[in-house]
């Protein structure tokens, strides 16, 4: 089956896992997802230093500025002479980072250093740079970040590697059997069955996305179990649990009841009687309310809203909701079964690329569409949308119920899409 050269394709005709041809890329003016600056600031008291060319620097420094966090951000500008003189890029990086740290009112306990694509292509001796920096600042913990988008088409992305580097500084502490950590996500666990169950079991909960102090962040090393609910954080969680010799559970927000039940059962945590039955009943009741409310109104979903957009589309479609479009550019391997199910049972469902050249001139229908996610909202041109990224910390039956309530709210209350979606990093402070 050929990959589509158009911006949209019926799922019945789509190819797994890449429904669309690669080409020039469009970037929608929608910015709620997090970038490496937002992620780095999850470590309390950490200072970030970027070493790059003007144009690349502008994006990250303005991210920090819009968060009101310039006090925890410094930069070193690379110029042509850094590219043309042998050894200059190492010198500029070392001296620049040193200068940035010395100019701060107080030496920060943690510094995240971000070299860029150019460092890689210049064959820069990164090991030497850190050796020298650690010699100059023996009390500082240096985190080895990288801002190298040129590498992201193959292998791991800069944000996956950053999450891992951030977890590398968590020390191996004696494991406490009563302590469990959510790790790898940007969104703290909210309406979340695991959180509920841990609380019912009287366990202490830690969350890498919700630490107030560096001490608290580092104390995550005493957790006996790690729960990862975001795909981009899995590499970090695998690495830290291997290093600390701890267990982990990987359970991104799924809308499949059986998957939820199986994941919770496999955790070995004690679950109250009728937990699963009551959870499913609550979801179905909430779903009925939604169906009664929105009727046959078309629904659009995008990949930034939830880790498993096709699982969501399948769940909604199976329960009579008129899912019209899923906005995505590729399908994650974990969604193959959902892809095939939708292909066989709902072949008219449209997959729509978010970066195809034609998207610069989106064709918006007159029809009112309920959207899930900021990109879907922008493409559909609607204020009736669920403003959520990365699953919003939701999980399990309580998470699904909350998600449906958010859809009801989106139907009832239109948002100012034009004001909301250009703001970066949903959930972070925005000073614009």
């Amino acid at each position, binding site marked *: 089956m050929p990959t589509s050269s158009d911006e949209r394709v019926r799922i019945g005709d789509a190819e797994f896992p890449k429904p669309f041809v690669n080409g*020039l*890329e469009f*970037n929608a003016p929608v910015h709620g997802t997090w970038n490496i600056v937002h992620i780095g600031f999850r470590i309390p008291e950490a200072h970030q230093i970027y070493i790059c*060319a*003007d144009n*690349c620097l502008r994006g990250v*420094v303005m991210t920090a500025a819009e968060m009101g966090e310039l006090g925890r951000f410094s*930069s070193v500008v690379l110029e042509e002479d850094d590219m043309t003189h042998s050894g200059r890029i190492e010198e500029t990086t070392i001296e620049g980072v040193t200068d940035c740290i010395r100019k701060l009112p107080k030496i920060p306990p943690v510094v995240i250093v971000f070299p860029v694509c150019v460092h890689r292509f210049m064959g820069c001796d990164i090991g030497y740079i850190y050796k020298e920096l650690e010699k100059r600042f023996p009390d500082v913990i240096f985190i080895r970040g990288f801002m190298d988008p040129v590498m992201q088409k193959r292998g791991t992305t800069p944000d996956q590697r950053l999450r891992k580097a951030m977890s590398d500084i968590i020390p191996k502490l004696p494991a406490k059997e009563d302590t469990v950590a959510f790790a790898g996500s940007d969104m703290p666990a909210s309406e979340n069955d695991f959180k509920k169950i841990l609380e019912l079991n009287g366990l202490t909960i830690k969350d890498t996305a919700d630490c107030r102090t560096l001490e608290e962040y580092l104390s995550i090393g005493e957790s006996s179990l790690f729960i990862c609910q975001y795909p981009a954080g899995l590499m970090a969680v695998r690495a830290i649990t291997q290093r600390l010799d701890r267990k982990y559970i990987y359970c991104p927000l799924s809308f499949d009841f059986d998957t939820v039940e199986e994941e919770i059962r496999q955790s070995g945590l004690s679950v109250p009687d009728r937990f699963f039955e009551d959870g499913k009943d609550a979801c179905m009741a909430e779903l009925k309310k939604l169906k009664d409310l929105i009727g046959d109104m078309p629904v659009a979903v995008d990949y930034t809203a939830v880790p498993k957009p096709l699982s969501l589309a399948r769940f909604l479609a199976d329960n009579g909701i008129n899912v019209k479009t899923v906005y995505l550019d590729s399908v994650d391997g974990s969604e193959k079964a959902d892809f095939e199910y939708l292909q066989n049972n709902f072949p008219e469902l449209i997959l729509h690329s978010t970066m195809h*050249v*034609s998207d610069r001139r989106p064709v918006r229908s007159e029809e009112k569409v309920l959207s899930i996610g900021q990109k879907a909202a922008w493409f559909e041109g609607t204020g009736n949308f669920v403003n959520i990224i990365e699953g919003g910390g939701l999980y399990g039956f309580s998470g699904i119920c909350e998600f449906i309530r958010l859809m009801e709210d989106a139907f009832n209350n239109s948002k100012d899409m034009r004001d909301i979606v250009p703001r970066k990093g949903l959930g972070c402070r925005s000073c614009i």
Partner: protein
Amino acid sequence: MKKTYRILPVYTGDVSGAASALYEFGGMTVIHDPSGCNSTYNTHDETRWFDKESLIYISGLNDIDAITGNDDKFISDICAAAKRMKPRFIALANSPLPYLNGTDFKGICRVLEEKTGLPCFYVNTNAMHDYSKGQSEAFLSFAKKMLQSPEKKIPNGVNIIGMTPLDFTSTKIELSGYETVSNWGLNTSYDEAVRAAEAELNIAVSSSGIASCKYMEEEYGIPYIKGLPWNGRPFDYMDVERKPSANYIVGEPVISGSIAAYIKIKTGIDYNVIATTEITDGLLLDCDRKCHGEEELEEALKDADNIIADPMVKLISPPNANFIELPHFALSGRLYLKKIPDLLKPGLYCPGI
């Protein structure tokens, strides 16, 4: 160290500047880059997305194509996009990696012209300069490729050159006795922009307009003056003599110089320009100066009595200096977007003067 920034952001970069300059000209601008430059431009350096479309794309360069110098995908992707989107021209902008590996953009332009039949030109950027340089290169490249000797001249026709949202929020220039032929490039169009050679006068309203004004002077005999028009007349800010003082206007030199000249004429008070953007040759008086980077600027402001600058500059200004805020989108971006005044109405943003 000159290359480090502790407090201030850097100005918008040259790649964004190029994209901004060409935004409304009806072409297709392709940034040969993995994704960083496009995201930066899209998010922080452009305000027009919701009101006006523009064909601005990135190539999505990956490591293997960068290492092997594989231009084939770049070329075929552009051809496919051009066939689909039907731009009036194609502009290519460079970024650090293609700059490092010496990608032959002019050669690629020739291939693209053959394959698409569209005019194609290269904008000489590499992400290591500020927006004024990128805009300047874009306007100049556009002029060289797209302008033709006019069949007729428009009496008292004038072009406004060097105007983008990175510096300006408004295009409402009242010039009595003149007819505006084109604006490069805000609230404009392809059809207007390509008529520029029909004008009898060019007004460079920012440093990024100077190079294309000089080109049009040499090529089409169109004289130019530099500066914001005041009182309905073209006005060259360099004609107003100013003396050294401890009052400073920080920013882009043509705009800052024009405001300094306005203040001098209006009040007799001398303000000196501290130019913090890149293009300054022939744009500063003896009392003015150029500053590169945060450290130099902080030093230059040490003796200031009065400062007119973007609000972020206040963070490195002496606390006892009187500070008048003049937000500049190319510096503080969206932080003060709602407070950016119409530069053509200085009475509004310099109320005490």
